[in-house]
């Protein structure tokens, strides 16, 4: 088939646009997971997590946005109690320290200050701060620094520590560097409290379900394909028909059954069923088993081989790809399952990862986005790694479900 250059170009453009839509959410999640919390709120959005530093006494000191304040033209002043703050120039009445009496009070203006206050901290000027609109003598303040901020050259007030010491630096004096905060993952794990238990529960369920699904559905698929017994195909039809039943139909009776058995609040309802050969897995394996020539089985039977040995030594080794698909899908289904754990697990300590993540989200109320995204990354990562390792099995498995269905 010939493809013109224009068609090809359009195809690439559409594919790229599509790829951006599909990949961006994951990248954004990962980027947010590595940011300090205040950068998750930054407008416009910022893709790379950064650290901001200023030069102070020859050292580089990191400043966090929560410790800073963007300044308009103002004075950096210190009140009598020692706390530093910025005040608009027009609200300060200046007094000169040198000629304290009589105080020549006049409205302060930066350009009229004499001696001019340098941008270096100095305690040359005193004044009174009276917020506009209020009356009275105001607060006596020491002017530390005049900040000649303009719209195009803003200054930033940096609070150092909790003690209230502060100094102003021009924005150009702040250096940004890309600095992913890997410690967010540790923080998210601590914030979720029972994370290690969630992980252990989830892995345990995954292992049990994979073992259960692969063994039981291999046995059942063998019975439905390699042994010729009466009513076999009719029973198989029944098995296929059960796939039509939506889970909500059996949800309540299953719950009451597990409750009668005393299994609510334990992991049992989430794995015992997998040892009972799910119809979908049986169907998938049966399709594979059928393609193996019956002659192989006949020859083995004549040699006195039992059916179990035929399954174990002849059929299964030939059907490894299909078994991998069943195992992968089961693992993924268990890892991702939300409704099952939501129904049967009652104590927050016993949750699985998916349920624990949801619980953490509803408790934190959607404020700690960096931790929430870090936790989501931790839940998603194993799936991505698994996919990259077994991409072909995934694609083949999915394709199989469509073609044979």
């Amino acid at each position, binding site marked *: 088939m010939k493809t013109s250059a224009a*068609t090809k170009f359009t195809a690439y453009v559409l594919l790229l646009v599509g790829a951006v839509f599909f990949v961006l959410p994951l990248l954004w999640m990962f980027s947010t997971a590595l940011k300090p919390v205040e950068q998750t709120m930054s407008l416009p959005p910022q893709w790379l997590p950064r650290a901001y530093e200023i030069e102070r006494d020859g050292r580089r000191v990191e400043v966090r946005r929560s410790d800073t304040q963007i300044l308009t033209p103002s004075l950096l002043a210190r009140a009598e109690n020692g706390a530093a703050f910025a005040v608009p120039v027009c609200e300060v009445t200046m007094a000169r320290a040198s000629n304290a009496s009589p105080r020549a009070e006049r409205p302060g203006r930066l350009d009229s200050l004499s001696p001019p206050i340098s941008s270096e901290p100095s305690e040359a000027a005193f004044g009174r701060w009276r917020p506009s609109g209020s009356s009275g003598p105001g607060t006596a303040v020491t002017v530390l620094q005049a900040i000649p901020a303009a719209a195009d050259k803003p200054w930033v007030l940096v609070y150092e520590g909790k003690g209230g010491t502060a100094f102003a630096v021009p924005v150009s004096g702040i250096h940004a560097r890309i600095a992913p905060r890997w410690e967010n993952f540790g923080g998210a794990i601590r914030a979720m409290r029972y994370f290690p238990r969630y992980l252990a529960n989830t892995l345990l369920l995954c292992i049990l379900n994979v073992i259960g699904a692969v063994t039981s559905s291999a046995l059942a698929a063998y019975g439905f394909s390699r042994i010729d017994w009466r009513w076999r195909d009719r029973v198989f039809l029944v098995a296929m028909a059960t796939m039509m039943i939506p889970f909500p139909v059996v*949800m309540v009776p299953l719950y009451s059954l597990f409750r009668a058995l005393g299994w609510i609040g334990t992991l049992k309802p989430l794995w015992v069923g997998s040892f009972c050969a799910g119809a979908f897995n049986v169907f998938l394996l049966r399709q594979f088993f059928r393609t193996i020539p019956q002659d192989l089985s006949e020859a083995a039977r004549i040699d006195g081989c039992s059916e179990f040995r035929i399954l174990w030594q002849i059929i299964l080794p030939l059907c490894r790809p299909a078994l991998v698909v069943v195992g992968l899908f089961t693992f993924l289904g268990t890892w991702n399952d939300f409704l099952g754990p939501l*129904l049967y697990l009652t104590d927050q300590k016993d949750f699985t990862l998916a349920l624990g993540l949801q619980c953490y989200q509803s408790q934190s109320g959607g404020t700690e986005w960096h931790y929430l995204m870090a936790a989501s990354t931790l839940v998603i990562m194993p799936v991505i790694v698994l996919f990259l390792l077994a991409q072909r099995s995934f694609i083949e498995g999915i394709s199989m479900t469509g073609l044979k269905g």
Partner: protein
Amino acid sequence: MTSLERHNLRLGLLFVSPWILGFLVFTLYPVAASIFFSFCDYDVLSAPVWVGGMNYRDMLTDQVFWKSLYNTLFFSVLALPLGLILALLLAILLNQPVRCRGAFRAIFFLPSLVPMVAGAMVWLWILNGKLGLLNQFLATLGMQHPPQWLSDPIWTKPSLVLMGLWGVGNTVVIYLASLQDVPQSLYEAAEIDGASAWTRLRHVTLPMISPVIYFNLIMGIIGTLQTFASAYVMFNGGGPNRSALFYAVYLYQNAFEFRQMGYACAMAWLLFLLILGLTWLATRLTQKHVFYST
């Protein structure tokens, strides 16, 4: 029955016994019990009390029930065709002789593997009204008042549709596999006859993959009508003005929050009938257009 037949029957039943056990315990009993419970007042703590068709009659007058049904159908009508078309479009693009096909396929497929809860977290963050990436992007395009995806009742369902489209990769892979099975000779013959690209798509590709389109349609009907996790996680309790209260969510609430298990069972059976009915309807409507080559 000869002795060999008896032997084979015993052997066959032995091998399928795990399935038989599962069928009896996890399917047959629950289905039967579910029918019974749907005619009972049942709260799981005490024994069910027979109330006849009351649960079904209650549904008729339950405004919230109708709202949840409406929400679910609205969502399905939006999500299903969009998903099928987007997936088909992407699959057709991937089926072109493009470079890095494997990489593109991986990118499209990966989100469909992402755990629903984690995916919902990511989308909650992207769709956030003020800080979300999507609204920031819309603002740079000059939109003054971008939609409040999560708090405006009009936009909650489209938000879920958007998130659903993100997970469409599964369907893309199914389509792609079937597209690659269409014999090249058909395209060559069509080209010799002077068929344009559109004609080839319309009269060769679509008929050849129509069984798979039908399969995806049926799976889509079954899946979207049962949408639970995404709606439950993103709009716990149904969202603003119950605009994201889906059928399965309301059913879950009835069973496990309001302890009206009988009512929940009745709702479940109605859902089953709805799925059966729509599947039958879809089959009837598409029957003439689905082409089986073998």
